[in-house]
């Protein structure tokens, strides 16, 4: 193995790739501009939709309760609802979104309330529909308020203090610093994006430097030189790895700048709650460095896999058809990693991609499981080494290199 030869091949591939628009697009332009724009764009749209839905006064319907006119009057008086006239087809009206929610009042409701018995009010909504959900939430708040007032009135009538029904108050306060909150909120989406970009960044250089060269006839030219096959693979592989890492760094830097400058109040379509986190969303720099360190073996793994798969193809187009399905193999564990309730354990620490997704999520939220970090780094490095050896083996095979 000659480092000088590997360096010569790497320098040439780097120069060549910097002149390739497709590579520049996938490793620098997309990670820098499109992905944050997409994330922020989706966040902005989601945030706008939710706030508009919250501002809207919902149309609701009261079913039954003809003998309880006070309830209807109070609902109208609250100014929080547009109360529609009762209709027999109220279910279809909710389905058609002409009415957002309905409250069914039993007969003799007000009388029962005065008597202290417990009549049941049923609220109807269209589950999964945002505006319907918000309307039913407001109806619930209205009826809870009504119930509290009824309790207070009944207690007063019996000469009892109101605290008897509320013996203590419950308050909640946050102790997490803003960067930890930021880490928790971003912890899901950032590892997913990084894993995806790490893969996408390696994709184009891997295809261009293998199948692309075979197709253009330059692979045979290169094989005529005295460089060993291993040196050629390593020189080219270093370029693929560079593409992958550049994509990750560009994306992290760009997201960091966007968050700092915009002071995001939304991330990935999830509105950030008001307060310290919403005011200045930030991530612990140590978490970012940790993520970068963990990404290196993953980038090696992705680069080696993409290099090997693309090498088998005869043309760039054929390589695309082999590598495109791999995106799903990468995305699935990355998505599983961001699902709530999946915690890191020893078995999951050995599961490639999923382990990185989980550990990055933890590191960004300020939790450092050093044992797992070592296992994940070690196992991923081992998988990467196996994949790289496979690349060298494939490159030595005549039926792969001269496949026609």
């Amino acid at each position: 193995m000659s480092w000088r030869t590997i360096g010569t091949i790497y320098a040439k591939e780097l120069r060549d790739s910097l002149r390739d628009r497709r590579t520049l697009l996938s490793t620098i332009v997309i990670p820098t501009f499109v992905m944050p724009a997409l994330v922020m764009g989706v966040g902005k749209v989601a945030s706008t939709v939710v706030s508009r839905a919250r501002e809207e006064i919902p149309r609701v319907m009261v079913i039954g309760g003809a003998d309880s006119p006070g309830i209807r009057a109070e609902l109208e008086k609250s100014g929080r609802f547009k109360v529609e006239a009762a209709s027999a087809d109220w279910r279809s009206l909710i389905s058609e979104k002409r009415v957002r929610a309905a409250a069914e009042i039993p007969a003799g409701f007000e009388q029962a309330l005065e008597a202290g018995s417990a009549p049941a009010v049923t609220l109807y909504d269209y589950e999964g529909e945002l505006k319907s959900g918000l309307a039913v939430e407001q109806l619930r708040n209205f009826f809870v308020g009504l119930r509290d007032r009824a309790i207070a009135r009944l207690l007063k009538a019996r000469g009892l203090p109101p605290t008897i029904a509320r013996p203590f108050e419950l308050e909640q306060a946050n102790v997490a610093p803003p960067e930890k909150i930021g880490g928790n909120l971003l912890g899901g989406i950032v590892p997913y994006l990084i894993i995806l970009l790490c893969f996408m960044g390696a994709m184009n250089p891997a295809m261009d430097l293998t199948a692309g060269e075979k197709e253009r006839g330059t692979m045979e030219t290169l094989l005529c030189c005295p460089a060993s096959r291993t040196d050629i693979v390593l020189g080219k592989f270093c370029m693929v790895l560079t593409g992958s890492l550049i994509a990750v760094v560009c994306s992290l830097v760009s997201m960091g700048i966007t968050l700092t400058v915009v002071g995001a109040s939304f991330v990935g379509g999830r509105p950030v709650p008001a307060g310290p986190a919403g005011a200045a969303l930030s991530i612990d720099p140590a978490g970012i460095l940790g993520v970068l360190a963990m990404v290196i073996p993953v980038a090696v793994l992705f680069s080696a896999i993409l290099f090997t798969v693309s090498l088998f193809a005869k043309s760039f187009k054929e390589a695309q058809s082999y590598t495109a399905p791999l995106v799903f193999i990468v995305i699935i564990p990355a998505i599983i990693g961001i699902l709530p309730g999946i915690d890191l354990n020893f078995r999951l620490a050995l599961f490639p991609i999923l382990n990185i997704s989980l550990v990055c999520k933890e590191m960004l939220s300020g939790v450092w499981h050093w044992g797992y970090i070592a296992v994940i780094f070690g196992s991923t490095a081992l998988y990467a080494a196996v994949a790289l050896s496979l690349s060298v083996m494939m490159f030595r095979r005549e039926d792969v290199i001269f496949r026609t």
Partner: protein
Amino acid sequence: MIEATLLTKVFHDRRKGEIRGADAVSFHVEPGRIYGLLGANGAGKTTTLRMLATLLRPTSGSAVVAGHDVAREPDKVRADVGFLAASTALYARLTAREMIAYFGRLNGLDEPSLRLRLRTLADELDMHEFLDRRCDKLSTGMKQKTSIARTLVHDPQVMIFDEPTLGLDVMTARSIIRFVRECRGRGKTVLYSTHVMSEAEKLCDTIGIIHAGRLMAEGTLADLRASTGCADLEECFIKIVSPGEPG
């Protein structure tokens, strides 16, 4: 010098089974001589040449190129061989200068030697005008000159040409032929494969006729004419590869 002894390459195909790309091919080429390997498409020329350039490993047999065994010392063989084929293309996004320099570095030239060699090649091949132009912007003739410079940058003892004029216009093909003659003039060992009879007639000191992977006949043009009784190389070729066919 090139010394091929019973050089054989067997390919395995799932549908067609075993294919003998080259079957016990033996010949030798002395320095300062051009050996022409003449054969139809699929006759085994490229396979034989690729084995000698160490791009393919022989299944059996042996070959010594520039004093090195192709199986045991492939890197040393490649360091002493210049391989030019229709299928060896240029990097489109590199300039002609970068292309030549890249292969100079891969062949172990240091920077001062490389600069000197580049200047010499650019002078000899009249390349100064387009040396800093990207290869994808070059004309066919310019590309061919760049390819020649790429094969010569490390001044190899042995030159292997695999149908180098394939798909080229007459003027570019003539410049290639002239260049091959110059290689002989400089004392290099030249192996030249072609299916164009006129090229073999004009260029080669010795002609080997290859068919279905086997070397069917070998000799000077005069030898081949005498052994077949035909005046024309094309007729000689037909008589050797298809003895039953009318000439």
